[in-house]
């Protein structure tokens, strides 16, 4: 009897403790997801009431994809962004982590400086890089000129690298955003790789050295397989993050020039809040949801499979 009263009291406490969080989740996640699904079957401009139009928003997306329209471009650009940032960003982060972990003194200062861009706001960072990319007075074009001058001095022949227009050039704009984004994300990935490296027992390397393994063999047989959880984690986080890239695009190019940098989220944002096509935007959001869901399933398999354990 006393026991069940205590149990009831515990249930009541649990209810009171959970209520605020669950109410917020219900109001701002669960209900909106259902509402967004409903809206994706409607025409809605926020001024007039939503009008049910069935699958027409999705049909429009299909037609856009078939005709290589703007949404198709945003998918292509988002994929380009992911392919540009993830492999190179991860390789550089691993290289830096290995360097920082090599047993030198005074490495904490490097670690700190690599991490600085991660905590700085993406908006501020994007604005600084826009200035670096400035076609007339930007530091990057100056860097190119210095390289050309050095090449001239070395070869004795006149070398020229013409100033680039970077963000204003449809062929370069996405690459410019990719470079900036790699620069910004490097520190985060490096810290995760470092945590992974510090979890590898030292005696494995000692044994390998006694067996006469070269540095490359040690990396291939010990470091890389034992870093798999770190690699998988960074990969998962980067893939999902890339599919949602927005702020740097909005600030640096607003999707231009000529839609060369518009991304999925940028399209959702524009359609919902500039063109007031909230139904169409919701349909796009569900396409994004589907993409992220599929990627997550793939990632889950990646995170589960292939654990390596060396005693």
């Amino acid at each position, binding site marked *: 009897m006393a026991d069940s009263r205590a149990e009831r009291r515990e249930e009541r406490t649990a*209810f009171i403790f959970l209520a605020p969080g669950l109410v917020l989740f219900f109001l*701002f996640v669960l209900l909106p997801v259902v509402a967004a699904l409903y809206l994706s079957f409607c025409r809605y401009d926020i001024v007039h009431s939503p009008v049910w139009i069935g699958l027409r928003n999705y049909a429009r997306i299909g037609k856009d994809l078939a005709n290589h329209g703007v949404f198709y471009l945003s998918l292509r650009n988002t994929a380009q962004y992911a392919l540009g940032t993830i492999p190179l960003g991860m390789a550089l982060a691993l290289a830096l982590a290995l360097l920082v972990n090599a047993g030198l003194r005074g490495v904490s200062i490097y670690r700190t*400086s690599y991490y600085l861009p991660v905590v700085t706001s993406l908006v501020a960072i994007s604005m600084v890089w*826009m200035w670096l990319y400035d076609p007339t007075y930007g530091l990057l074009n100056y860097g190119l000129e210095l390289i050309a001058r050095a090449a001239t001095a070395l070869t004795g022949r006149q070398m020229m690298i013409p100033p680039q227009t970077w963000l204003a050039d449809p062929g370069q704009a996405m690459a410019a955003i990719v470079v900036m984004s790699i620069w910004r994300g490097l520190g985060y990935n490096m810290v995760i790789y470092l945590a992974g490296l510090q979890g590898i027992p030292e005696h494995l390397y000692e044994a390998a050295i006694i067996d006469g393994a070269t540095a490359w063999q040690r990396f291939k047989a010990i470091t890389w397989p034992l870093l798999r959880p770190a690699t998988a984690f960074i990969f998962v986080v980067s893939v999902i993050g890339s599919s949602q890239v927005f702020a740097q695009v909005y600030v640096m190019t607003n999707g231009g020039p000529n839609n060369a940098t518009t991304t999925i989220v940028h399209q959702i944002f524009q359609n919902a809040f500039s063109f007031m096509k909230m139904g169409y935007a919701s349909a796009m959001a569900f396409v994004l949801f589907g993409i992220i869901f599929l990627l997550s399933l793939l990632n889950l398999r990646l995170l589960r499979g292939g654990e390596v354990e060396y005693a």
Partner: protein
Amino acid sequence: MRLTLAKQTLLHLLLLTGAATTILPFLWMVSTSLKPESEIFRFPPIWTPRAWKWENYSAAMQAAPFGRYFINTVIFAVTITASNLLLCSMAAYTFARLRFRGRNLLFLLTLGTMMVPGQVTMVPVFIMLKRWPLAGGNDWLGIGGHGLLNSYVGLILPGAVGAFGIFLLRQFFMTLPRELEDAARIDGCSELGIYWRIILPLSAPALTTLGIFTFTAAWNEFLWPLLVMSKDSMKTLQVGLQVFQTQYTTRWDLLMAGTVVVTIPVLLIFLAGQRYFTRGIALSGMKG
């Protein structure tokens, strides 16, 4: 493993090149923010201003209600940090320690909310805030005014609790020994007392980590304030920075002064609480 001196020097050189690449844009930002216009538009560029123009900062602060943006950002970041610490820890404690029907299901649902990208819920939440009954000039049907748009409540409420924070704290609470709580329970301490006087004080490191993460994320948040706070007096710093960018010209001197001001608070927090950042990553990522 001992490294030879030559190898050490080479490694340091490589690391230094990397560090220079990360720091350079920051230095360029500070340098530009202190230059007169004649030195900004110069090619080849110069690194240190000939005439240090501190006035850029006061000019930038006057170009827009920056003081107002700053206060708005502080209110937003502090409130959302406080509410996340409180609500996440309450939920985390419940999931970690209390027994009740439907616990596993509710926990799974909570984690499930992390799967939903913010871009899916963004449009309906925006409409919901605009149509919030009896707020911002709305009648009880939510018509007539702007609702909770351009209000702190509207900015803060949708992010007042997060599944990630609940998950992080629950993981930490589960590692705490139960002996203290059991002793307190025998002495007649209530669940509220155990949560407030035993669990929370023992969890200071985890709470600090979550607090720092939430604060920096809120400080740097862009898309949501951009949507909710359209009125100039309600903007946050991240949104307000755009006043220096018009369609035709950008005042790089003032813009860079603005970005320095926006950046400094989070940089200070990072430098002061560095170990919490690394610990947070280890807590959230690797062991899961």
